[in-house]
């Protein structure tokens, strides 16, 4: 990246997370991941809000489950830089 480190852009202070999409959500989005930078202190619900703002968000379940680092997480779970967030469509295993 260009530019002086530290002051100004604010991006250095953000946390980068990868939001993974699966099944019907990946199909609707036309991709299986969204890379985003969120403000420090962001929680799982903030990642979900990013997804809810997508043009295909009508395909989302009313309250989709969210996983952080491969484990189901509550909406207020705090995110850290490098976390893997997943929006989990209704499941149909078995």
């Amino acid at each position: 990246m260009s530019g002086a480190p530290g002051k100004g852009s604010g991006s250095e202070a953000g946390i980068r997370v990868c939001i993974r999409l699966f099944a019907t959500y990946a199909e609707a989005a036309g991709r299986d991941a969204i890379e985003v930078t969120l403000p420090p202190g962001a929680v799982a619900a903030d990642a979900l809000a990013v997804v809810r703002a997508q043009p295909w968000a009508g395909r989302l379940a009313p309250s989709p489950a969210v996983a952080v680092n491969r484990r189901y997480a509550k909406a207020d779970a705090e995110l850290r830089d490098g976390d893997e967030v997943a929006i989990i469509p209704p499941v149909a295993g078995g």
Partner: protein
Amino acid sequence: MWAMSGWLTDQPIDVARLVADVASAGSGGTVVFLGTVRRSEADGDVEAIEYSAYQEMADAELGRIVAETRARWPEVRIALRHRTGLVPLGEASVVIAASAPHRAEAYAASRFLIEETKRRAPIWKKERLATGAARWVEGRPAGG
């Protein structure tokens, strides 16, 4: 890549091997559950179901479900496999073997394992019909 614990497989499940895995001299009862791909009358002839998974998390979640089962029924020996990829009609998509000194524990553990797997494992399925059409099977809200 992640280190798979081996709960998922893209190959046909060897039921006899899972039964052998849970065999022990102290076992008085073994329950084997097979979930199989079936015909769906509402949608026409299903030829196969394509299972897709959030592989890393499904593997981890199945591991957590097995660990919880072992904590609840310490005497039960457990083997479990879930398929991914295309599973033809009649083949098993999931197999659970549970053995215990007494049948009640084996039945209870087996039931818990399949119900929790269906409720929690991040796995999805798409029916492939004889007509060539494909359709996502509506799931249930995932629960942690």
